Structure formats: C-alpha cells, structure tokens
C-alpha cells in the first residue's frame, strides 16, 4: 500500500525482556532485517539462561552454550554481536503510545554508575568495595559487593553499582584506572519509535519462605531449586558438587519436594508451573552423577514430564539412576540441631504417616508473574487473565489484548525452554507480518571491493597486539610479547595498538597492511569473539581476505582464567602467540561462494499447523505451495468441536481455510504427495504428485506438518461393546446432542490408553486435558451424573490445572492406578462395569457404568517414507526429530527444513498454532537473505589418498558428500558443506581435509604449543 510510508510508521521492533523468549524473537527479526531494540531491566541480558548448567532432556551442558568460541550456539553473544540489535540494559518502559506500526515508547534507563565503554573489567573496584550483600544470581547463596559483575559471562561486560547497597564511600573511584565510575550518573529518559512490541517478560520464582513449614531461609540445608541449580553449575564455588550449606559436606541422602508454590491454593498459587518435575528430575540425576553414593527421594503429587521425549527421561531416572519417586504429601521439614540434618514428615498415598532423615532438601519452587511485570502490563494496556498471566486467545497464542503487542514465554504461561523458543519465534512472525509492507525489508547484500592477490608469495605476517589497561598488563606486557615473537619466521612487522580507540587502531592497521605489504595478520590481545566480526569487516572493506587473519586470545586465555597472573601466565601468552603465528603462516585466502535463493516455501500437510504455517509464510511475503494428501483440508481439527478453554475450533478452521484459499500467494494441491526432493537450504527442487500427475517445484524452504492420529485402542472391550468409546467419539456424541448422552448416569473415563505403555512409551500430553474437558461438559449437561476418571498421573499442566480443580469441585472422582494394575472393563449379564484397585483404600472397587470412555493417545502417521524422501530423521516414536531440542526445536539439521504440529509431538491446538507460526518465521529468516553464503572452511578431498570407502558419505550430516562413480573417489558439494569436519575425522587416509584446518596446519600449531 502506498499509504504505508506515511509519517510515524516504523519498522523497528522493541523487545521487552532479554531472556530466552526475547532473545529468540530479537535474533530472528534481526536476521530477517528488522532493527531491534532489546530492552531488559537487569544490568545484563540472558534472563535465567546463564544460571542453567545442564538442560533436560539431553542433559547436555549449558556451559558450552556459553562458550566464547564460535560457532557454539549462544543467544546472549549472538544478541550482543548482531549489528541489527541494540541492547538497552537497566532500562524500563514507562508507557507505549500510538498504534500498531507506529508506537512511541517511553524508556527510562537507570544509572549503573559505571561506563561500560570505559570499564576494562579489571575488578580492582571489587577488591576495595567495603559493602557485601547476597548475590541475586543463584538465589542469594553467594555474596557480592555493591559494585559487581552481574555474573561471570555478563553482557554487556561491565561492572555495575547497586545504588541500594552502595554507601558512596568513593573507594572504587580511587582505584579505577580507566575512570569508568561516575557516582553522579543520572537516570535517562528517552522515547523511541517502534512498529511492533514483543513482551519476553519472564517469571518470578516462588518465595519459598512463604511455605514456612519447609524451613527455607531458616535451615542451611534446605535450598530452593534456583539455588541448587547454581550449586550444580560448574562455575559455582563447589564447582558443581552437591554441597550442604551448614558444613560443606557432600550430602548422601537428598530429598526433592515438588509443588512448592504450585498447585497450592494456601499460598495463592493455584496453577501448575509445568517445568518443575522435569528440572527436579534433572537435578536429581546430576546429583547422582556427581556422587554415586547419593540416595535420592523425590516427593510429588503427580509427576508431569509431558514434553517430547520427557517420559523416557523420567523412566530413565527411575530405572537407571534409582531415584525413589514417592507419591505423598509432605507436611513439615524439621532440623536436627546437632547434625543439621532434616526430618521430613509425610503422608503416603495409602494414608500412612512417615518420617525420614535427610542431609539436604531441595524445594522445587514454582513460578508466577512478578509484580513488576503486572505493573508494566497495566502501564502498556495489556490485559491479564484470571491467573494474572497475559491474556491471549487460544487461536492467536502470541497476540496480547493490545494490537501490535505480542507475547512470548513465561508471562503467557509457565513454559520450558523449547516452548519458549517456539513462542519467541511465533511472536516474531506476528511482528514480521504486521510490519511487512510498512517499509523496505530484507537484508541488502553488502558490496566489498575486489580482493587483491593476497596470500600469494611467501607469507609476510604482521602481528598487532591490542593492549588493554588491566592489572595483568604488568605480568603479560605487550612489550615483552612483541620482543619474544619478533625474530620468528615470516614475521615482518609487529606493533602495539592501544585498545582505547578501536577506529583509530583500525586505521593504523589498514595503513600498515599497505606500507609493509602484509599478506597475513595475527591479532592478539582482546577476546576473539569481540574482534572476529569487526576485523573481518574491516579486512573485506579494503579488499583483504578475512580468512588469512588469525587471532591469539590473550585476554581470555590468560587474563580471564588466571586473574592473579604468574610467570607461567606470561609463558602461556607467548605460546598462544607462537601458535597463532604458526597457523597464520599456513593460512590460504578462501573464496566464499554464494547462491541465489528460491524465495518460496513448500508446506506438506494442510491441518491446522500446515494451514497456519502457509498463511504466516505468505503474509511475510513469500509464495507458498501447500500439498495435502487427502481430498479435504483441515486434518484432525475437523473432528474437534470445542476446546478446554471454551473456544470453537470449527469457526477458527473455517476462517483459516478461507484465508488460505483466498491468499493469492498460496497454491493448494489436494491428493498430493512429495515424491522426490533434492538440493539444500535456499534451493530445493522437488517433485510432487497431484492426483497421479507429477509436477516439479523449486523452493527455498520446506515445512513438514503431516499431523498425527488417534491411537486405535485394542483393549477395554473397545470395538466389542458399543458402550466403550474414545474421547473423540464422546465429543462427537455430545456435539450432536445424541440420545445416548441424555440417558447417562454413570461414566468412567480411562486415561493413558495407548500412551506411556510398551507400545507407545511416551505421554500424549493432551489426553488428561481432553478427559477433564469432556467431564466438565457432561457435568454441565447433567450435574448429578457420576463421573470417574481412572488416571496414572493427572497431567493438567500450566493453567489447565484450574480445569482439573474445577472438575474435582464439581464432584468428578479421580482414582489412580499403575500400569501393572490396569482397570478391567467387564461386560456381565448385559451390564457393564469397571473394576479398579483404589490405592487410597487399598481395595478393589467395582463401578457399574453406562459408558466407558477411553482417553486414547496420539501417534504420528507412518512418516518413514516421507523422512527418506525429504532426507529428515524420525525419533524412536516415529515423530520427526529436531536438530536440537532446546535451541532449534522446529528445525531439521539441514537448514532449510522445518516441521511443526502433531508430527513434532502431541500438543494442544494452541501449541500447534504457535509452532506453525514459529516454523514460518524460522523459514522466512532464510528466505529473507540476499543469497546463501556458503561456508568458507569447507572440506575437500585429496583424490590421490582417497580409497573410495565412502565413510565420509555416511558421516556427513548435511548430505554434502558424494561418490564420483566414474573415478570412484569421494567429492564435496561445496555449496552444501557446512564445515563441520565430521568427514575429516572419519577418513582413514587423511584424504578428507578442511580448508585452513589441514592436518599439517593443526600439527604445526600443536608443535608450537608443546615444544
């Protein structure tokens, strides 16, 4: 629209809250070309992310996420380094005026009293600061000074002063050599323009003191899970070893108490916090890994590992780690004064009263929305729901009540990391759609001057040492290092560059390259992470190949890990310099190829997820081909008549289908299937068959949304007795006001039919909610109907917990059973009854019934053939498998392939919608690029050494290796190779090599380090 350019319109996006959700939204939108303002009220970005050591369900180490070496995935560093993201820490929003596409936001920046541009992180201020207070990071277990670094890896990397603790004694001012401290720094206010706003506001952990009976805050050996997460982190004072607060002893008997501040009306926390079961299991497993002697008990009401692959994790904790799960209610924790051990009193499911002594207790605290967040929501006009979370509608899960303001993460509902990442992407998609057409979009391709013939001829190395003001400078002096390397082979020039003014330094280096005819560079000193991008850009700007620059990370390798310094530190610095020079001598200039992108997408499956993904991708400006195997669109949603939250899926589905059919950018093929797919992210060539006719397509991305289906039960007399139906069939009967419903007096529902058993060893997540939904509906029709739900664990997570409470209040009776004592459905003399052992009375009960309803699980369609055709993988349960369950939950390893909906994992409609929107965003990011820049450090094959064994072909995760069958030698498709070096590792003849990491280069570096 021509009017789009009108005054006040902005394409910028403001993201409030720089936790996992906010960083995800910011990074995706920035990649898609939008300018982002990423704001957080804390002095450092990251939210709770830096606290996590290991994450479930893989127990992979979160510390590596924080590793300073690229290409490790770390959203914090990526956010810091992205040129389209402007960080605004210690900042708060006080109001938002205007309308979608043209907001004006008032921002207040609190003073930190330290200038991050000047602060050199030497830490001299901390030494002299006389004030000590508990450190918020890690729940107050450790102490910090009034001037402090928020946490070791804090970004922005600068000390800050806590004005509440500071006594203004001025001692820090005296020792701050860069003069970074300004105690008179004032609050700043400004306004900024933004077209859209995303709320990535986080949670507040429950204050365990409020449950006084557990003694948190009184007993040294009772920790909150936040504190225990810190204890288990390798960067904690105990280096990750479980430890008692009272005496530093390693605890043998450890108890976890669940639902502290969750599912508990006595403290006003009526919802389920969703993730505590999983994080407690994780913490229990790590405890056992760190101390094999540990005996661990976990006290719980219902265990709720309902995410993808979580049930297996739980089973593993029981079977392999021997963690003792005790269904019980804990009434009190008492401390013994001599040993400081703790007595836990609890009541078991059968009603017996027990007491047991433990060395350490961890309280699994729940989450809620903090007052600050509620206050902000009020200020910016975003409504809350009854549970004080952000109000959203089921079918627009990331849209708040205020148009143009979107929501992601734990302010919407308690969420784990994959769901938060999904919502971050979903919110980003909504913002992108809103702003598409507001102005120019996409990342303009940069142009650089032609590169000279650098790298030819003998190496002429220039070494530049970027010096910082830091106490360590006395130990590792630039002068000494420069003297040390001056005589080394091929080093023709050395110079110290003061780090104070980077632009001046760059100018000097550029001059030197010309003057001294340098063709290799070694840059030493500051963090590689901070330098690599800027130096690369500088080099390309003058036509110098960026791949012949090597970095020696003296600051982090010496300054950060040996802060006190010693003669060995200097020795290490010298070695790091030598290693860098040895590599630089062997570096070759690399040409990075690129290819154009087919700016369109292919979506497979036209259920809610596929339809939503198509529409979202089209509305971001890309052509979409949607293929559906069946004749009719809509998938499972065609058989769903109402949701637990009270919405009508039929209305939504109709609107969605109309939207898709009317959108000129979407072409729909029914009775269509994918037959063949080749190519790589950005450029796929696919053959589909439409009603028997083959058709070729070119597209840049593919989104699989092939759905799932209800498990067909083969037990409980299903199919034999017409009075045994599934939940979906019951829903149909209720919806059609069937006569059979009117005559019902007694109904039994049986949970986990085709879930959590041998055949389907996963939780289908939605069946507990489904049963509660239909039970409430029946109670609505006939309040005196007797309803029984026979369950294994009630998994009404998050705000669904309220529906569970409501069902109990209305008289629905819940009876638990175990897998090895399943209920029996008996048809006798024309009557039907269900028999089950009720553990609370320890006896078998027989319930005569009119109807038995089976809560059947969800299973994927048989995706084996599609996986083969599309080059994607399935997990053990037949769902598609993601590249990384935490950081890339909707992505396949190949970067142009995505998936969402029931083919990902069982989910409610709203989560499927969020996934579909998120997948469209992740796909759009790829499509928005000017071109696909290929990896520079690709693999290549020395044909003389290749024996044609083909190991590299099976090892390559990207399908970049092929066999040249004419000469029977392996080859590399350079435009597909991502430089992971898997092929180099498996090659027995060292025929596979990676550019600039050749064996000779690496060996020379190792030699330099050890000799």
């Amino acid at each position: 629209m021509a009017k789009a350019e009108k005054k006040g319109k902005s394409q910028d996006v403001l993201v409030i809250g720089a936790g996992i959700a906010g960083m995800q939204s910011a990074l995706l939108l920035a990649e898609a070309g939008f300018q982002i303002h990423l704001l957080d009220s804390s002095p450092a970005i990251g939210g709770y992310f830096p606290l996590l050591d290991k994450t479930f369900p893989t127990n992979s180490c979160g510390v590596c996420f924080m590793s300073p070496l690229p290409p490790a995935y770390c959203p914090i560093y990526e956010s810091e380094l992205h040129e389209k993201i402007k960080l605004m820490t210690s900042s708060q929003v006080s109001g938002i005026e205007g309308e979608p596409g043209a907001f004006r936001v008032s921002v207040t920046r609190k003073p930190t009293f330290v200038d991050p541009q000047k602060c050199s992180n030497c830490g001299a201020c901390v030494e002299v600061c006389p004030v000590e207070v508990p450190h918020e990071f890690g729940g107050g277990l450790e102490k910090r000074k009034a001037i402090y670094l928020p946490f070791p890896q804090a970004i922005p990397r600068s000390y800050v002063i806590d004005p509440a603790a500071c006594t203004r004694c001025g001692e820090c001012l005296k020792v701050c050599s860069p003069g970074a401290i300004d105690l008179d720094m004032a609050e700043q206010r400004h306004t900024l323009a933004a077209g859209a706003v995303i709320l990535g506001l986080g949670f507040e952990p429950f204050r365990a003191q409020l449950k006084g009976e557990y003694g948190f805050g009184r007993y040294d050996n009772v920790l909150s899970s936040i504190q225990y997460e810190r204890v288990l982190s390798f960067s904690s004072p105990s280096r990750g070893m479980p430890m008692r607060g009272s005496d530093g002893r390693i605890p043998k008997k450890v108890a976890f108490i669940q639902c502290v501040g969750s599912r508990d009306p006595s403290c006003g926390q009526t919802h389920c916090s969703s993730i505590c079961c999983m994080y407690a299991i994780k913490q229990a497993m790590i405890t056992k890994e760190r101390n094999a002697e540990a005996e661990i008990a976990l006290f719980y009401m219902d265990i709720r590992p309902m995410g993808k692959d979580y049930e297996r994790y739980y089973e593993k904790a029981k079977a392999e780690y021997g963690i003792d799960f005790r269904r019980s209610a804990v009434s009190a924790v008492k401390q013994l004064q001599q040993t400081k051990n703790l007595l836990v009193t609890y009541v078991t499911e059968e009603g017996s009263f027990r007491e047991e002594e433990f060395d350490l207790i961890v309280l699994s605290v729940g989450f809620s929305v903090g007052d600050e967040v509620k206050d902000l929501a009020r200020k910016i006009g975003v409504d809350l729901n009854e549970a004080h979370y952000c109000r959203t509608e089921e079918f627009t899960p990331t849209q708040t009540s205020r148009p143009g303001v979107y929501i992601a993460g734990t302010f919407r509902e308690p969420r784990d990391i994959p769901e938060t990442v999904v919502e971050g992407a979903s919110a980003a998609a909504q913002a992108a759609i809103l702003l598409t057409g507001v102005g120019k979009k996409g990342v303009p391709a940069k142009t650089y001057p032609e590169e000279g013939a650098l790298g030819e001829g003998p190496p002429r190395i220039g070494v530049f040492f970027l010096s910082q003001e830091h106490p360590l400078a006395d130990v590792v002096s630039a002068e000494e290092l420069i003297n040390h390397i001056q005589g080394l082979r091929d080093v023709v020039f050395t110079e110290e560059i003061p780090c104070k003014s980077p632009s001046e330094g760059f100018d000097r280096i550029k001059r030197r390259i010309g003057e001294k005819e340098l063709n290799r560079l070694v840059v030493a000193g500051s963090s590689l992470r901070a330098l690599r991008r800027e130096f690369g850009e500088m080099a390309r700007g003058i036509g110098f190949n960026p791949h012949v620059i090597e970095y020696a990370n003296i600051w982090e390798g010496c300054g950060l890990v040996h802060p006190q310094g010693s003669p060995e530190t200097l020795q290490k610095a010298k070695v790091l310099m030598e290693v860098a020079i040895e590599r630089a001598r062997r570096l070759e200039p690399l040409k990075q190829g690129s290819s154009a992108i087919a700016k369109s997408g292919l979506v497979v499956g036209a259920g809610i997820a596929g339809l939503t993904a198509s529409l979202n991708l089209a509305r971001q400006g890309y052509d979409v081909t949607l293929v559906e195997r069946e004749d009719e669109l809509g998938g499972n949603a065609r058989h769903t008549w109402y949701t637990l939250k009270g919405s009508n899926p039929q209305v939504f589905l109709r609107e969605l289908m109309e939207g898709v059919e009317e959108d000129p950018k979407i072409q729909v093929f029914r009775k269509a299937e994918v037959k063949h797919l080749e190519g790589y992210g950005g450029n796929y060539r696919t053959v589909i068959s439409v009603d028997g006719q083959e058709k070729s397509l070119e597209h840049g991305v593919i989104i699989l949304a092939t759905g799932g289906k209800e498990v067909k039960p083969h037990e409980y007399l299903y199919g034999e007795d017409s009075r045994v139906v599934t939940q979906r069939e019951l829903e149909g009967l209720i919806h059609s006001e069937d006569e059979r419903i009117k005559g019902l007096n007694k109904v039994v529902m049986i949970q986990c039919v085709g879930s959590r058993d041998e055949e389907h060893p996963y939780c289908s997540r939605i069946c507990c909610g489904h049963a509660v939904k239909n039970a409430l509906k029946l109670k609505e029709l006939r309040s005196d109907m007797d309803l029984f739900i026979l369950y294994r664990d009630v998994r009404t997570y998050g705000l669904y917990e309220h529906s569970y409470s409501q069902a109990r209040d209305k008289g629905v009776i819940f009876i638990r059973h175990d897998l090895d004592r399943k209920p029996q459905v008996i048809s006798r003399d024309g009557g039907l009854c269900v028999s089950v052992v009720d553990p609370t009375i320890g006896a078998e009960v027989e319930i005569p019934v009119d109807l038995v309803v089976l809560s059947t699980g969800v299973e994927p369609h048989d995706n084996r053939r599609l996986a083969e055709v599309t080059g994607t993988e399935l997990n053990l349960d037949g769902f598609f498998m993601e590249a990384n369950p935490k950081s890339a939950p909707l992505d396949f390893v190949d970067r142009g392939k995505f998936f969402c909906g029931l083919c990902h994992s069982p989910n409610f409609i709203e989560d499927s919608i969020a996934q579909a929107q998120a997948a469209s965003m992740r796909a759009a990011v790829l499509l928005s690029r000017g071109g696909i820049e290929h990896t520079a450090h690709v693999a290549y094959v020395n044909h003389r050494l290749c024996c044609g064994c083909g190991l590299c072909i099976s090892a390559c995760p990207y399908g970049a290796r092929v066999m040249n069958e004419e000469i029977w030698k392996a080859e590399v498709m350079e435009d597909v190779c991502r430089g992971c070096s898997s092929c180099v590792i498996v090659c027995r003849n060292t025929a596979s090599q990676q550019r600039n990491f050749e064996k000779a280069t690496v060996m020379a570096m190792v030699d330099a380090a050890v000799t």
Partner: protein
Amino acid sequence: MSQNTLAEDGERYSYFPGCTSHSTAVEYDLSTRAVLKAFGVELVEIEDWNCCGAAAVHSMNKLLSLCLPARNIAMAQKKDLELVVPCAGCFNMLKRTERALKTDPEMRREVESTIGFTYREDLKIRALIDMVVNGIGFGRIEEKVQKPLTGLKVACYYGCALVRHPKVTQLDDSENPQYLDTLISSLGATPVEWSFKTDCCGADLALTHGDVVVKLVNRIVEMAKEAGAECLVCSCGLCQINLEMRQDADTLGLPVFYFTELMGIALGLKGTQWWSKHLINPSTLLGSLNLQ
C-alpha cells in the same frame, strides 16, 4: 488502639484468667499478676467470667463453642479496656469466636441472641505474651532486669494454639514465632534454635488418649534437649502440665516454666517460688546458675 501502644505506668487491662488459673496453673496467674504489677500495669478481672470452652466443646457443639467465649467477650466489652488472656488455649477460643462474629453475620446473630448482647467490634483481645512484648516492650523489660538469667538455655515452646491458625490468632510468625525467644534473650537467658516450637503437645487428649500425649510430649522434650536446652518455657496451662507430667522424667527431666515465672526471677521479685507446684523441680538447675 494500636498493638504497639506502650502500657504507661498505671495502664489498665481487662483480664480473663481462665479456669486453669484457679487450679493446675495457679502459678501462671500468680506470676502474671506479680510481674505486671512490677511494671505498673493494672489487671481488672472481668466480672463473672466462665470457662472458654476449650478442650472438648468445639468438637461437640459449634454454637456452644462460640457462645462460651462470646459471653466472656460480652462481659469484657462493658469496660473500655483491652482484654488480656494469659492462656494460649483460652486466647485461641476467644479469637476464633471473634473471627466468627466478624466474618459470619448469620452466626453472629445466632450467638448474639443466645447470649443476649450486641457485639461491638472494637474490643481488642490480646494474648498476654503479645501484651508483654508489644505493650510493655523489650526496652522497659531490659531496664528492669536485676538478675540476668545468664547461662540458662531455654527452648521456647509456643504450642499450636497461640499462633495457629494465623488468620485467627494474627500473632507473630506462625511457623517460626519469635516473641518468647526475644523475651527470653532480653532477660539474659539463651533461647536455643529448634524446630519443634509449634508442635502440638496433645492438649486435652491427655484425658482420653494419654498414650498419644506421651508420644507427642516426649518427642518435643527430646528435641528440646537435642537442641541443647535445659528447660522449656511456655504460655499455656495445659501445655505446661502436659509437658511436665507426660515426659519421661528419668531420661529427660527438663523443667517447664511459664514465661512470667522466668520474668519474675530476672526482675528480682520477692517470693518467686511459684514453681513449688511444678512436677519437675527446677531448683537444681536454677541453683547451678545462682538463680534461686
């Protein structure tokens, strides 16, 4: 009247002694009167008071369990004074009645018509310990201490009636109360850190299920000893007698004081041998610390 009003010399309070003050806990009554007199506080016993109904009534007849305390409230509100209740059990019954009168209009009408009075919401009902801590205040108490209880290790036992349910009693921290501990410190004694301050002593189950009380009491006293205490201090007639009578005196033998008794010693009052009625003789303990 705010809870923190200081009781100036000559200040007056209504006083509900409770039945035990005439029998098993007469020493609580005597020590209370003596200590308060030393601070110039005058207690005006309410006219014709009756049993608060503690023990069994609340489990037998709800209306009666509210009317018995309500009659005392009716008598007390005739005077324009705050009502002070030494016994934790009585205090709890009166507070429960107050809550019912304030929050349940139907029940209020029924109670009012049964007793024949009109409830005035302004009567303030205070536990004696609350009046001592917040009315007299630690400053005045410390000033008056003549004989600090140095070296006396005390487990402060609040029981369940004084602080629970928190919405009813509205007193101190219901999980980790501090009033007695701070008071004992200001007398120069050492309160021990322990976790059984608010456990139930079994109360009137002593009459029907003695074995239960034996079990509960022994656990409390054992834990007091484990925490390093040489005696306990409490603020309830029933708790005191349960704790002394039902503990295994041979293996434990910890004396149990009313807090007013310890105040009396510390203030150096004459004739403080109120504990002659105690079942566990504290003389040896007090003698060893020169506190006789």
